[in-house]
């Protein structure tokens, strides 16, 4: 081959390589940001948020982030109502306050509101510390969302999360002066709207307990009958319990499961009365609780040794599952550390996707993220080195398949 031929050949190869690269980039560009059936894990940490993605097989995960590096993210949500595909994240700067941001391209870009889009009225005497929960409303009202915040209060949005107004009935509640902060602060962390009755909703607060409205938020009554307050002289006050999480199944909305600051409970009357269901768990102290999306008797929890020593009981990291509405609980351990574990799973760091074979996920204070693609029967690690995880929310793009 002559020098000229070699030069020509090299030129041709370079051109082909360039064309191949362009073709690949074009293909990638045309590919949708996410495909139906993909699973999203929205992971909030004390140093930013991560969007963790997989296809429906849930065997390989891609971690994207951190978004909002340096800011803590205690609440995230995915909202697919009204034809959008919106991520929501409540970000808190250690210095400059909290806002709710949204992304309609799976986290490629986020809104950066100039004004604080969620804040207390000046005459309330209160200032927002952070957002603890974001809950999309019903499918037939796609603009409606709720946010639970610290200090204890509820906000609602009617424009998909861009602007928020306070729910006056809770803001001006007569019990407010008597609600006291738990270790995590004065937070309203659980929001359970009744899918059958727009006027009814249950919220839970640390520390304040369970409250229910039956008139669309105008008035709220404490619903803590049977839930103990281990840390108070009166163990069964009307309110003041430190409830950590409540879940329910939309197909049987009046049955609630509650993880308390000591105590596991079930109510079959929208919280009017509660019964102890801590049957066979190593500790009834814990934070996290997750409902199975397809089975109204299946609930997951992660017990914690005690309030004084917030670590895995007996140094074994175990998720417990009931399949009979709390009559009995079974430990799920395969793939999880069964010795030397000091892990702690916080109230919003346990979640499930809605595939037929449900995926269950949780994150720990030590930055470990675990996944199960078989309803908790076995677990694998997605990451063991994220920042301290404070929330994990799972979603299936396009709904369950």
């Amino acid at each position, binding site marked *: 081959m002559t020098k000229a031929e070699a030069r020509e050949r090299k030129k041709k190869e370079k051109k082909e390589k360039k064309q191949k690269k362009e073709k690949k980039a074009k293909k990638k560009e045309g590919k949708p940001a996410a495909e139906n059936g993909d699973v999203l894990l929205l992971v909030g940490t004390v140093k930013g948020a991560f969007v963790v993605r997989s296809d429906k097989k849930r065997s390989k995960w891609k971690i994207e982030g951190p978004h909002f590096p340096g800011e803590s993210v205690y609440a995230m949500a995915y909202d697919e109502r009204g034809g959008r595909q919106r991520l929501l994240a409540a970000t808190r*700067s250690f*210095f*400059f*306050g909290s806002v709710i941001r949204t992304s309609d391209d799976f986290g490629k870009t986020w809104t*950066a509101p100039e004004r*604080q889009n969620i*804040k207390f009225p*000046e005459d*309330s005497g209160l*200032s927002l510390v952070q957002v603890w929960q974001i809950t999309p409303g019903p499918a037939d009202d796609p603009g409606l969302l709720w946010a639970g915040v610290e200090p204890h209060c509820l906000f609602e949005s009617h424009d998909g999360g861009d602007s928020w107004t306070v729910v006056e009935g809770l803001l001006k509640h007569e019990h407010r002066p008597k609600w006291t902060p738990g270790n995590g602060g004065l937070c309203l962390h659980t929001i359970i709207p009744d899918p059958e009755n727009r006027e009814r909703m249950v919220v839970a607060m640390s520390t304040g307990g369970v409250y229910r409205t039956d008139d669309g938020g105008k008035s709220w009554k404490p619903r803590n009958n049977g839930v103990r307050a281990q840390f108070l002289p009166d163990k069964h006050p009307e309110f003041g319990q430190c409830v950590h999480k409540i879940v329910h199944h939309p197909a049987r909305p009046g049955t609630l499961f509650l993880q308390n600051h000591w105590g596991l409970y079930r109510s079959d009357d929208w919280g009017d009365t509660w019964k102890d269901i801590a049957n066979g768990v190593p500790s009834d102290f814990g934070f996290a609780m997750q409902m199975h999306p397809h089975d109204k008797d299946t609930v997951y929890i992660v017990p914690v040794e005690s309030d004084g020593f917030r670590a895995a009981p007996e140094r074994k990291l175990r998720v417990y599952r009931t399949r009979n509405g709390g009559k009995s609980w079974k430990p799920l351990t395969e793939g999880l550390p069964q010795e030397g574990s000091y892990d702690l799973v916080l109230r919003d760091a346990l979640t499930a996707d809605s595939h037929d074979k449900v995926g269950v996920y949780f994150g720990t204070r030590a930055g470990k993220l675990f996944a199960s693609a078989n309803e908790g029967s076995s677990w694998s690690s997605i990451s063991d080195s994220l920042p301290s995880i404070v929330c994990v929310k799972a979603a299936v793009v396009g709904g369950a398949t």
Partner: protein
Amino acid sequence: MVTFELPNALMPFARGLGEVRVEDARGTVREALVRLGATHPGIVERVLTEQGEVREHVNLFVGEENIRFLKGLATPVAEGETITIVPAVSGG
């Protein structure tokens, strides 16, 4: 005129600039912030809470003096002075 010097995190609320000059802002720090808020509300909402107090982990300096050790938001600001907004050296 009073000049506000901004930390990097607040520059997006001033079109990327590191300082904002405000006419007729002399008086107190609170009055200067009110004037600033008329044109740059995003900055002021990140410095003050809903109750009009300086956020816990934000420091304001008039010249080289931290207003926490002067008269707080009532600290006087003279024509030509600079107010520097500084995130506290804290956190983990």
